[in-house]
């Protein structure tokens, strides 16, 4: 396994003294999609910020493709798709201008765009299927379109590591599937992708790996080993809806297997097997 991203024993304390993250460690290989799963306030955004050096680490370090963070950013290796709340949607800027900002790291100091830059913007628009919206002001888009624009900016940036903070919040299932399909293409091109979400249902479907977070890393590794009932309940605690459909409610024979359904109000995750189901059989929307 060739390592793309190493987070090594990272702790973050905010100025008000709040310990948002403690001793977080995990590794992500090149050519993988990883889900960063945790409840609100569990430190997902904080983890992204520490990967990019936006917050000072009180302990630990981060390595991106073998480089320390600062150097990796200078080399334009990291693309970041921000949370929607972090963007001022009234800003007078057109869709194509936002995507062109992904190219700034490739331009000279006057930021003059050349033919290649325009081609990359065009390609990115096509890949997220937003060609018809290039002249729109960004506030005139739907929730899903807004996410796709910032994903397109990451595509135009052509970086090796892509970090997406809650790209599925406020997005319909169809857009979510589109974004996920695109991320899988990128994985196959050898990118390192980290997606934060609290949308349980899509994780086992789409992500090779999972990192469970709640102010520290609860579990990290391949989805099928991380996504167990124990781990999920630890990560979500009381927030999780838990239904067990077992034995006689499910069928009339004496099969003792049961269906376990864990939901955080969006897509549920379905665990099928004997008590304390350990692997995921299937997930889907209800």
């Amino acid at each position, binding site marked *: 396994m060739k390592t793309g991203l190493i987070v090594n024993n990272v702790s973050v304390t905010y100025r008000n003294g709040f310990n948002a993250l403690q001793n977080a460690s995990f590794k992500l290989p090149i050519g993988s999609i990883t889900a960063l799963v945790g409840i609100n306030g569990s430190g997902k955004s904080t983890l992204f910020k520490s990967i990019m050096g936006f917050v000072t680490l009180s302990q630990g370090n981060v390595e991106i493709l073998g480089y320390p963070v600062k150097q990796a*950013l200078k080399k334009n290796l990291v693309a970041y798709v921000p949370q929607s709340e972090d*963007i*001022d949607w009234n800003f007078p*800027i057109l869709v194509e201008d936002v995507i062109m900002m992904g190219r700034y790291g490739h331009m000279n*100091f*006057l930021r003059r765009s050349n033919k290649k830059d325009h081609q990359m913007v065009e390609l990115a628009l096509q890949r997220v299927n937003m060609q018809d919206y290039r002249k729109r002001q960004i506030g005139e888009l739907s929730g899903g379109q807004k996410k796709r624009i910032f994903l397109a900016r990451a595509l135009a940036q052509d970086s090796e590591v892509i970090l997406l903070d809650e790209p599925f919040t406020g997005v319909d299932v169809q857009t979510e599937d589109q974004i996920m399909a695109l991320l899988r293409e990128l994985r196959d091109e050898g990118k390192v992708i980290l997606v934060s979400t609290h949308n349980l249902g899509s994780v086992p479907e789409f992500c090779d790996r999972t990192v469970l977070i709640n102010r520290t890393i609860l579990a990290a590794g391949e989805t099928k080993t991380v996504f167990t009932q124990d781990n999920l309940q630890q990560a979500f605690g009381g927030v999780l809806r838990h239904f067990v459909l077992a034995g006689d409610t499910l069928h009339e024979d004496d099969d003792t297997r049961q269906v376990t359904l864990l939901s955080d109000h969006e897509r549920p995750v379905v665990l099928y097997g004997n008590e304390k189901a350990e692997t995921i059989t299937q997930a889907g929307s209800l």
Partner: protein
Amino acid sequence: MLALFELLSEPFYFGFMQQAFIIVLLLAIPSALLSCFLVLKGWSLMGDAISHSVLPGIVIAYLLAIPYAIGAFVAGISCAIATGYIKENSRLKEDTVMGIVFSSMFALGLVLMTKIESDVHLDQILFGDLLGSSGQDIIEVAGISLLVVLFMVCKGKDLLLFVFDKQHAQAIGLPVRFLHYALLSILSLTIVFSLKAVGMILVIALLIAPGSIAFLLCNSFANMLKVAVLVSCSCSFLGVYISFYLDSAPAPTIIMLMSLLFIITFIQTTQRAKSINLDVPDTQ
């Protein structure tokens, strides 16, 4: 016919009017460019704060017998830095902190003025002396204008990205701290060198109004810059011109024109939004 032409061209015959036209136009351009960034960054009151804060710097510079511009610049930039520092380290919002810092500094300046005999006149700082400006003033304002325009040509796109999405700017390795302080420094310089000529009240207006009018009208940043410069230059020119006939002070006349334009723009854009909403009852 000829008489009418003579009447209309009368303002251009006087040397002091010619200088006033040149100065306001030279100043209208950099302040319009800056106002676009300030309005979008949420720093509209930064111009207000910095221009009040320069007062103690000017008095102290007089005391130390150094050029007033140095004292004014140091005081102005200290206000901006103090605001940033207190905001980072407290729960207060930026506008509150700004208000505290600049009112304190302005008051300090006023107190110093009563204790120290100096050639600083509050009237001049507040209202400037547009009609009494010298060739030296023109050179200074031209210099600052050139500096701001050059900076915008070289770093305007980086600044835009910094204002729009600081995280992306950081993620692609742009020097965001440099951009932050560069914007504040260039703003302070503009204020310092225009105070003497046009006064605080006009500077503050020039640093907010063009950007906000353009913001109401534009969908893209490139257009916003153009509209802001157009608004700023035309109001400044017309303001000086009209003031000649009204026998009013030029600075408030310019501001009145911009306010009028703002009101018209506001009504027009809200009407347009309403009619669009009526045409398309359900955009969901």
